[in-house]
Structures are given as C-alpha cells and as structure tokens.
C-alpha cells in the first residue's frame, strides 16, 4: 500500500498544496474519483478551476458555489464545488449577526465588500471556512480541498486568524469607539491617525471603514470561535496534506518550502505527487546508429532518459526532507478533458505505475 492509499483510507479531509501550474486541481479531482470508487461520499472544493475541468467532470454549465453531484458510476458519490469567496463570507456574516439588521448593515457596506473581495488572505480564509462547513455536513464523509494558487499557498493555515487579527488591531479598536462612547462617524474620522489615513485614501473611503467596524461590533467572538474550530480541524489527525509538484527545480523548491512550513506547524506531509514527469523508456539499446533518420530515434530515447534521471535528482531533496516516496504521474500527450481522462490520472495515481526511472 502506498502512502497515498494509506492517506485515502484514513483521512476525512485532504488538502492539496503546491505552486501554480502543477496540476493541483486535476489531482484533487482524481483523488475524489478514487474516493467515490472506494464507496466514500466525497466533495472536492476547487478554487478558480479552468472551465475545462468543469467539462472534464461532466458539469457542462460549470461549477457553482453549491456542491453539484457528478454523474459517475461508482459505489460512492463525488460532488464538486467552486469556491465563491464573497458568497461564503456573506454566509458567515449572516450566521454570526445578532439580527438581520446588523447583517444588512455589514453586507451593504462598501468597506466590507472590499474585504470580502480583496483582503489578502480572504480567499484562503474562506477556503478553510468552507472546508469546516463541508466537514460538518452529513452529506459528505471526505472533503478534498485544492488550495488557492497564491504565492504563499499555506497562508491557508493562518488565514482563519487573519480576520481575528484584523479585528483586534488597535486601529480598529479606535474605529469602533463611536459605538461605545456614542461618538459619531465624523468625529472619529477626525482622530489624528485616522485623519492621516484619510488624507491618503480619501475621507469617504475611511468613513465607510469606520461604519463597517461599528456595524461589526459584537460579532468578534463568533468569528474568533469559528476560526479556532477551523484551526483545530486543520490540526486534527484525520486531516492530511498532500504536496503536489512538477519535477522542476523551482516547483520542487516551493514544495520543500511548503513541507518545511507544514512540519513547523506540526502537521506533516502525508503524501507527495509529482505530475508532468517525463516518461522514461530506459537507455537506448545497442550502438548509436550512423544514418540520419535512425540516429534521431536513438537520441530521442536517450534524451528522454537523461531528462527523467535529472527529474528524479531534482525531486530527491524533497524526498529526503519529507521521508515520503512520491507517486509519479507522467506527462500525458494531451490535457484531461473528460471523465475518462480524469480516470486515467486516477489509475496512474493508484495503481502505482510509476515511470521506470523511479527506481534510480
């Protein structure tokens, strides 16, 4: 049994980490396909997938923020959704608001709309929040999440704390003063520090920010508790982290960085998947031919072999750091564009047909 098989049989939550362009989303979907074959009710959370993936999953209209069940023939179930950060955040606000009026005041505030749409870490935070909601949802017994393609994808782990930190910031405490002291927005904007900020961004924008924090007052505890729950889930022993990489020096460096951060946080790496590996057909046999067309074939096989050997060397430090044996998925002649293609990736991941170079 490979590390990947072991992980799939024990985990309730699988988090796929890796830099952009390494096939993370496709991998997450292929893992989900395997889980459904194993009889599990699995939901895959994707972040901004290519439309082609929605096609590959057999969802012609594209994925939505609500899980859609995929038309596959297997003992289990496979559901997929595409994270909509703003909608998820709205849901969180509505759930934590004391009354519908407070929710409305927040949801219509333009500073809030900026936070929901573009505060650094919000997408990661909402991915983590969604993960918890789906984990608690009786319809599913496995959640697979694809982390956002940010430079620092593991912000995901700290993201739930981002807002808590934001709320606890002295400036916001200052902004929330009006509700406590009965001050009006305009007088609080006149505070020296805030006035300075206002000179840079304009006073209307600042007034919106102050109005947001006034409206938010009272909801801090709810948000903080929820963030703690998300963090507990990520640290739980049924949550597994998979590193997805391609065999290139730069993506391996990123993967090693992720591995270090996971280890620092006491989370560890459950499995490693290396996508887009050059297939290895071994060293060409016999002597190098002299004639032009034949030598090209010989050189081709030799070059692919050299490439594959080099790729294993690039991956070696990651293996040494993590003590995990990667599952290799070879570069395919084309993209995955239907469920059959996805099933092919699944088979490559779970039948252990690694390229021959893996032994070297």
């Amino acid at each position, binding site marked *: 049994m490979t590390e990947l098989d072991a992980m799939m049989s024990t985990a309730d939550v699988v988090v796929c980490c890796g*830099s*952009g*362009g*390494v096939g993370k989303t496709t991998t997450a979907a292929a893992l989900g396909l395997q889980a459904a074959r194993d009889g599990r009710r699995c939901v895959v959370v994707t972040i901004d997938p*290519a*439309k*082609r993936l929605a096609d590959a999953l057999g969802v012609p209209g594209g994925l939505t923020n609500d899980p859609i069940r995929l038309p596959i023939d297997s003992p289990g179930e496979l559901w997929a959704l595409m994270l909509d950060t703003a909608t998820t955040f709205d849901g969180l606000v509505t759930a934590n608001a004391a009354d519908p009026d407070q929710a409305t005041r927040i949801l219509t505030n*333009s*500073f809030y709309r*900026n*936070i929901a749409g*573009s*505060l*650094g870490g919000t997408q990661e935070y909402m991915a983590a929040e969604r993960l918890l909601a789906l984990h608690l949802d009786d319809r599913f017994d496995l959640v697979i999440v694809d982390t956002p*393609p*940010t*430079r620092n994808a593991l912000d995901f782990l700290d993201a739930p704390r981002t807002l808590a930190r*934001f709320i606890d*910031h*002295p*400036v916001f405490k200052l902004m929330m003063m009006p509700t406590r002291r009965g001050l009006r927005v305009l007088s609080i904007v006149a505070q020296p*520090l805030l006035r*300075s*900020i*206002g*000179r*840079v*961004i*304009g006073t*209307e*924008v*600042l007034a919106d*920010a102050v109005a947001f924090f006034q409206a938010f007052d009272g909801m801090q505890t709810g948000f903080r508790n929820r963030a703690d729950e998300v963090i507990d889930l990520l640290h739980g022993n049924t949550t597994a982290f998979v590193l997805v990489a*391609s*065999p290139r*020096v730069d*993506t391996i460096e990123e993967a090693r960085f992720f591995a270090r951060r996971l280890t620092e946080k006491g989370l560890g790496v459950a499995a490693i998947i290396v996508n887009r590996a050059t*297939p290895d*057909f*071994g060293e*060409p*046999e016999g002597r190098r031919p002299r004639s032009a*067309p*034949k030598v*090209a*074939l*010989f050189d*081709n*096989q030799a*070059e*692919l072999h*050299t*490439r594959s050997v*080099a*790729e294993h060397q690039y991956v070696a430090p990651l293996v040494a750091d993590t003590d995990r044996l990667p599952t290799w998925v070879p*570069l395919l*002649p*084309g*993209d995955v*564009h239907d469920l059959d293609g996805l099933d092919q990736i699944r088979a490559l991941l779970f039948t252990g047909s690694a390229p021959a170079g893996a032994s070297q």
Partner: protein
Amino acid sequence: MNPLQFLTDAHVAIVAGKGGVGKTTVTAVLARAAADQGLRVLVVELDGKPTLATLVGAGVQCLALTPPAALAEYLQTHGLGRVAKRLATSGVIEVVATAAPGIDDIVVLGKIKQVEQSRSYDLILVDGPAAGHAITFLMAPANLLKLVRGGPIRSQAAEVAEMLADPARSQVILVTLPETTPVNEVVETAHALKDDAGLRLGPVVVNAYDEGEDLQLDLAPSGSALHAAAEFRNARRELHRRETQRLTDTLQLAQVRLPLLASSVLDKASVAELAAGLGVQS
C-alpha cells in the same frame, strides 16, 4: 526585419502569464536579448524572490519592488513622510490597502512610472505578479478611479492609468505554454486586457516549444522502447503544433517561440542561449 523590434515598441513591457508557464524565464531572456542589442535595460521583480538578478547576466539592472516599501516611498515623496512613519509603525498599511483595494498595485506601478519618466532606461521589463493576478494588477488603477473620489492616491492612479493606456509607453507581453489549458487561459487574459482594460498587447511568447521534425516510427520495431519513446515525442510535438496553431487562429497577435531546452535547470548560460536564438528567429 529585426525579430526583436517589438522590444522597442514601448518603454515598459509587463510580462504576464499564469503560474508555471515560465514568466521569469521569459523576462530574463527578453532582458538579455534587449541588452545584447545595446538597449539600457531594467528588470523589475515583484515577488520578492531575487531570481532574475542571477539569470540576466551583465549589463542589465535589477530592481525588486514590494508594495509596503513602494507605499512608504510614495508617501515620503508626496510630503506625507510623517504619515508614512505612522502607518509603518502602527502596521496600518494593511488597513489602507483594504480600504482602497488595489492601492498596493498602484504604488508599485507608480514607482515603475517614476523610473520610466526618468528616461534612464530604454526598456523596463516587469516580471508580472505571480499566480495569474495580472488582470487584477493591471486593472487596479482603473478600478480605483471608480472608487476613490479624491486624494493623492487617486491622482497616482490616474497617472498610472495614463501610462498603461499609452501604447508608446507600455505594452503587455503574455507568456504561455503550447498546451490546451495554458492556451485557453492566455486567450481569455488577452481579451480581458485588450478589450476591457484597453492595454497594448505585444507578441505572445510560447515557452518550451518542442520543435523538430516528426520521428519516423517505422524505423523502430513496434513494441520496442525506441518505438514507444518516438511515439511519445511525436505526440508531444503534435500537441505543441496544434495548440500553437490554435493560438494563431484565435488571437491576432505575433508569436515568439522559445524552444524546449534539454535541461530544465535555468541558469545564465541557458538564458543567454535562448536570447541569442531569439534574435535570429524569422
């Protein structure tokens, strides 16, 4: 015609593409090629990883820009030095950035504009933001203008928007791989940048193109490793030809191809080799 003519079309060239397509490679190669032509070249890095400096070789200047540093400098030069200090010590920069989204992109672009205005360089190549945030980054000035009605940031956004909209001052060079998903993505990005943001698009750079004649499969016994290896190579080349053709058919943009290198380790030598090859392409 000089195949590198496009490098002098505008003073600022922003290299953009999704993660994993080789944006940094392309930036380094273009910088090298431009410097070899005798241009005064500056490369700008935005992701805080000083990779470019180790790749471009002699005669190319490098500048690393980060949003907090650019914002602090902006405030300093706009007579808001005391505010800058206050913002830095109280850690409010994040608040400012949230209140006016895109402000960090704008100060970074503003710094680039300032360097452009200094006329110290013939070409400023910007290794665009990571992870496909190119559209957000390049549309930040226009979006902020809609949101903020006054203040120094608004005037900065207006000046940057003017630079981006002027085809003699700036262009965007998109990077892709000759594969299905990257081609789809680059087509979408091109439409968004050209039609929605009104930016000038330079040629699309197709990175890691596996060029060469098809191998003759009948020369190897079927079922042999030799045959299988040749079949794999031909399939990859066929994919690259097909996807590049589709790119030509879909986007009315010139293309520059960088060949697939034998090694996937990028260093000064391979950058120089790719740059030299670029100059002789027809």
